[in-house]
Structures are given as structure tokens and as C-alpha cells.
């Protein structure tokens, strides 16, 4: 697997010099993953393809706004994909939700010493995710990717609600434990 900082560097290269080669590398890595993730969460293939293309095109356009101290490439790209999926899926209903996310993601009155917090957080969460059991990972996927309620996760996996709650509780406490000394 390519180390994280390489992806960050590719986005920075696009921002600095419109580096098409860097874009091709980013596209080849992330576009098929955005598509795969969306399809796994039940998005039809055609829509997933469209969102994946638009996501990478947005990375190209907004590369100058990428701040590697706030979030890693993967986290930044996943929020872009989320907003575009909302826009595209809810086109007919005049949804304003992606604008709401943009307002929330603007810099709030956070403490100035949090400048590197985001990058470090992302590294630790990635590491912690690889330590989850497959059962915990699947429950996290359903809750954090598909936004399912605990009740619906239980239905999907055909396991009792209490089991879902304890798997997610264990997973969350593991993730939180890894972030503890960060705040």
C-alpha cells in the first residue's frame, strides 16, 4: 500500500503546478475506491461512477484548498464524495444539504493549537481500524458508511440489537483510546 503522505503530496503538486501526472496517480488510486465504497453502500453502479468522476474532478479544482494538517487526503476526498453524492442523488429535490456541510466544515472557532491535530488523528484512526475484529469492522462500516441506525445494522447482519451495540461500543472505545492523549 502507498503511504499516506504520498497522496497528500500528490494533491499539493496539483495545487502548485497543475501536475497532470499527479492527478492521474490520485485518480487511479481513489476513483475506483470511491466507486467501490459507494456501491457497497447500495449506490447503483452508474451513479457511483458519476460521483467518483466528479469527486476527483473536484479534487483537481479545489486542490489549493487542501490543508494536509487538517485532514489526510483520504478523509478530505471522502467528505467531497459525500457532498457530491448528496447533490447528485437529491438533484430533483433541490437539497441544500451539501451547502450545510460546507458551512460546518469551514474553520470554526477551534483552538489554534489544533493545527496538526487532524493529520495525527487520521494516522491514528487508520492504525486503530486495522486492529478491529472483522465483526467490529463490518458494524462500523454499516454505521459509518451507510448511516444505518443500530436497529438497522442488527437487521442487516441478522444479529441481536445488543450484539450490535456492544460491537460498536468496543470499536468506538478502541478508536477513542487511540485518540485519548491527543486532546
Amino acid at each position, binding site marked *: 500500500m502507498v503511504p499516506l503522505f504520498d497522496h497528500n503530496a500528490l494533491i499539493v503538486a496539483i495545487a502548485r503546478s497543475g501536475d497532470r501526472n499527479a492527478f492521474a496517480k490520485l485518480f487511479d488510486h481513489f476513483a475506483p475506491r470511491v466507486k467501490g465504497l459507494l456501491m457497497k453502500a447500495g449506490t447503483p453502479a452508474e451513479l457511483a461512477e458519476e460521483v467518483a468522476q466528479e469527486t476527483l474532478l473536484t479534487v483537481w479544482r479545489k486542490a489549493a484548498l487542501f490543508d494536509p494538517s487538517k485532514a489526510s487526503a483520504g*478523509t478530505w476526498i471522502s467528505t467531497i464524495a459525500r457532498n457530491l453524492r448528496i447533490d447528485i442523488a437529491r438533484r*430533483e429535490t433541490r437539497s441544500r444539504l451539501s451547502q450545510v456541510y460546507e458551512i460546518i466544515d469551514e474553520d470554526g472557532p477551534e483552538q489554534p493549537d489544533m493545527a496538526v491535530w487532524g493529520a495525527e488523528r487520521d494516522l491514528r484512526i487508520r492504525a486503530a481500524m486495522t486492529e478491529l475484529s472483522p465483526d467490529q469492522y463490518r458494524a462500523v462500516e454499516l454505521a459509518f458508511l451507510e448511516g444505518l441506525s443500530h436497529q438497522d445494522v442488527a437487521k442487516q447482519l441478522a444479529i441481536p440489537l445488543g450484539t450490535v451495540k456492544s460491537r460498536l461500543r468496543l470499536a468506538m472505545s478502541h478508536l477513542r483510546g487511540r485518540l485519548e492523549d491527543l486532546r
Partner: protein
Amino acid sequence: MSAAHRPSDETLAAFATGRLDEGLALVVATHLERDASSRRRMRSFQSVQGALLDGAEPVAMSIRATDVLARERDAAVMVEPGHSPETGLPRVLQPYTLGPWRPIGIGIAMRKVDVAGAEARVFMLRAGAGVALPHHKHSGLEWTTILSGAYEHQYGRYAAGDFDEADSEHEHTPRVDPVEGCTCIAAVTGDVLFQGWLGRLLQPLVRL
């Protein structure tokens, strides 16, 4: 602003995925705009999504990177039609159209927030000092963010910035702060069922 009542992990995770009903999401966003601690929690959840993206199974694209960039040259520039935002409102409400305040009882006024495509109905509620809102229960969800002042019910005191997450198991009689009054924004799914004669009078009005 630091709140005492915050969204559950379940709610914040659903918000972070973008799959929450837009009306419910807007009330969560109003809380997030005011609460740095909840924002930080939500960003950790976005970080989980980033980690899931890195670990995702790739599915082949039907187009190459160079073809996507070629399209960029003739992409139209989209400009959002802007309108000057009303001052004093949460920023997350700026993209939406709000109705006028209308009185719905003594000391209580309501204002509709038009959220197209949402299942939940969204409204702002303003109640004078000491007003007791009619005793009610829900058939669905009632999520509330307090914008100013405070109210209190059997689950605690909710002040500016707090998020109140009630479901169909809750039955309550909120009492508005005797000095400050209370302004809040709420999203409701299903029906709000008022009890008593005052409640029956209010029932048709809150259907929006």
C-alpha cells in the same frame, strides 16, 4: 459555547455519512455550528470514513484520468443564485427559505423552515419566559437545538447550544426558562401528540 447535551454517537455518525433526513440533519448542524466539542467528534467520524475509503475494495472505472481532465476544459462555471442572509440566524440556515413568525398561542410563536425533500418538518419556536409548552408525546422523532434561552423537562435543563434528541418513548412537558424565555429549532417526524384541551387546540397548527 459549550453544551451539556450533545447528539449520540449513532446520530453523529449518521450525520457524518450524509444519509440522515435533511430536516433532522439541519437541526444537528445547528448544534454543530455552536459546539466545538461535537464538531471535533464529528470530524473523527469523518476520519473513520476516510480510513474506510483507504481500505475499500476498488471497482474499475469506465473512464481514464486524462478523459476526465479533458472534460474540465468545457465545464460550465456554476454560480449559486445568492440572496442576502437575514442577520442573527444560524449560518447553516442561510441556504433555506424561512416563513414569517406566527403566533400559535399565548407567548408562543412559530416559524416554518422550508426544507424541500425532507421527511421531517422543521420549524423555529419562540416561547416567552415561564411558558409551559403543552404536555406531548411523539409517534416519531423530535430533535431540537436551543438557540437562546433555555427550557427544562424531566430529562434535564437544555440551554443555548444544547441538542435534545427525543424519540417516541419520550413524553414530556417542557417548561421555558422563567427569565430568558427560549428560542429553538426543531425537526419532527411522524406526529406530535398533544394532550389536554390546549393541546387539542394547537394540534392543527403544528401540522405545518
